[in-house]
């Protein structure tokens, strides 16, 4: 048994409801919510990518304010996530800004951000652990290194933006693409509506 598996089991036993939640510290390896059936993996760390980390460099001087409001810069003032159902302090730990938090109020390291996302996106998280979602870097066998959720989905605006596609396919050298006249493809109800209007 590897050291990681031992820690995992210990952490599992530590996860007893009522009172022990605050006692747990940051989780550096893939945390408690890792499904033991999933193949072992490592996550690319996020902290090196974060501009303002560690957040306590400012927040040690500021009083925590739990009121839901619009924030000043450098924070994004709008959160395009959850359609007004969540706000900043849903994910950011109010008393320790160097950590994230989940619905149980536990401290979660920025490198283990997927655990936060899993609070609401459990199915996706499960898919991600098993490799059905997300991206694996480099190889299909051996060491499994995958990207964490914020790597692709900016948590403040997770929808993937539309972008320009790469150029369209060519036709054979020496030939021209014909001028196809595409038919209008209407659904059954659209066809009926069109017929009714005529």
């Amino acid at each position, binding site marked *: 048994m590897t050291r990681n598996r031992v820690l995992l089991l210990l952490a599992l036993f530590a996860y007893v409801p009522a009172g022990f939640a605050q006692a747990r510290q940051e989780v550096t390896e893939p945390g408690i919510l890792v499904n033991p059936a999933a193949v072992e993996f490592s996550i690319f760390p996020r902290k090196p990518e974060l501009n303002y980390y560690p957040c306590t460099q400012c927040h040690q001087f500021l009083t925590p304010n739990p009121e839901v409001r619009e924030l000043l810069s450098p924070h994004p003032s709008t959160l395009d996530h959850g359609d007004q159902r969540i706000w900043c302090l849903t994910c950011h730990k109010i008393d320790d800004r160097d950590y994230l938090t989940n619905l149980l109020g536990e401290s979660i390291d920025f490198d283990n951000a997927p655990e936060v996302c899993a609070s609401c996106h459990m199915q996706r998280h499960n898919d991600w652990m098993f490799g059905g979602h997300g991206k694996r870097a480099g190889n299909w*066998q051996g060491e499994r290194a995958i990207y964490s959720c914020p790597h692709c989905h900016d948590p403040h605006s997770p929808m993937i933006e539309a972008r320009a596609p790469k*150029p369209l396919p060519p036709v*054979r050298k020496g030939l021209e693409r014909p001028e196809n006249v595409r038919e209008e493809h209407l659904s059954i109800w659209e066809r009926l509506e069109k017929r009714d209007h005529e």
Partner: protein
Amino acid sequence: MSNTKKKKARSVNRETDISRRTFVKGVGAIGSVTAAAAAATTASAASWGGKTMQDAFGEFFQDHYKKMTPEEIEEALTRIERNAERKTGVNIQCENTPPIPGVLFGYAINISKCKGYRDCVYACVEENNLGRDSQMQYIRVLEMEQGTRNLEKSEHYYDPETVPQEGKYYMPVQCMQCENPPCVKACPVEATWKEPDGIVVIDYNWCIGCRMCMSACPYWARHFNWTEPELPTEVVHPVTHYLGNRPRMRGVTEKCHFCIQRTRKGRLPACAEACPNGARIFGNLLDPNSEIRYVLENKDVFRLKEELGTEPKMWYFSD
């Protein structure tokens, strides 16, 4: 008596016949003109197609891959490396990495995630030394109408400002590496076959270019080199495999080979690595813990044209 008869017959013929001598002269004239013209047109081309005579003959008399001894294969690999260096100036490696035992490759594409960027198409072009001037592309991304799987309603040449477009979804198509490939059956010289790890490969030195396989393929996966593929020196990818991305010649068919030069060494194919949305999932179907198995067992997967009995190893799913 017979002699006089013969003489008479000959004199009759002489009046209407054009003598044999004239005919021979005429043919000779045409023949020499043809030969001169042919010589003039070929004089400009490099001798032996840019190869040494030894390499040209060695390549011509090369045996079928499955019948070659390891020494002959080594010879073929070094010959390919020499020819490529002569042609492109790049020192390429041509390997013959064998299949990994206990591996059967499978691929799944998440059509909810594919947004039609075509990043995979161009990553493949770079990785696999596809002809730039001839613009060969192994992957074609189809823009499908939402609500239908009818390929006839798909748009191949979509070019909007941004993708994804409203009311469309995107489905990349490439060689499905069928378990029951109709192309393998159709090839008259067995230039294409299925390897033990499931990849359907082509020996470009054996293909005669009859294009029977292209008629047989239901997925439009096989593409032909109508012209000599142009590979500028700066874009040559030097790590190649004999059955994969080594430089090809005109007159042969080629197709996606699951980046055999990468996958047989444990790496993901270039298209899977290039997709920024993680829509492509590749792995070993025989490994119960692989990502591909998870997808196939837990997602609503389908395959294209399954009713034809080809048993493709590329699935599509949405979630």
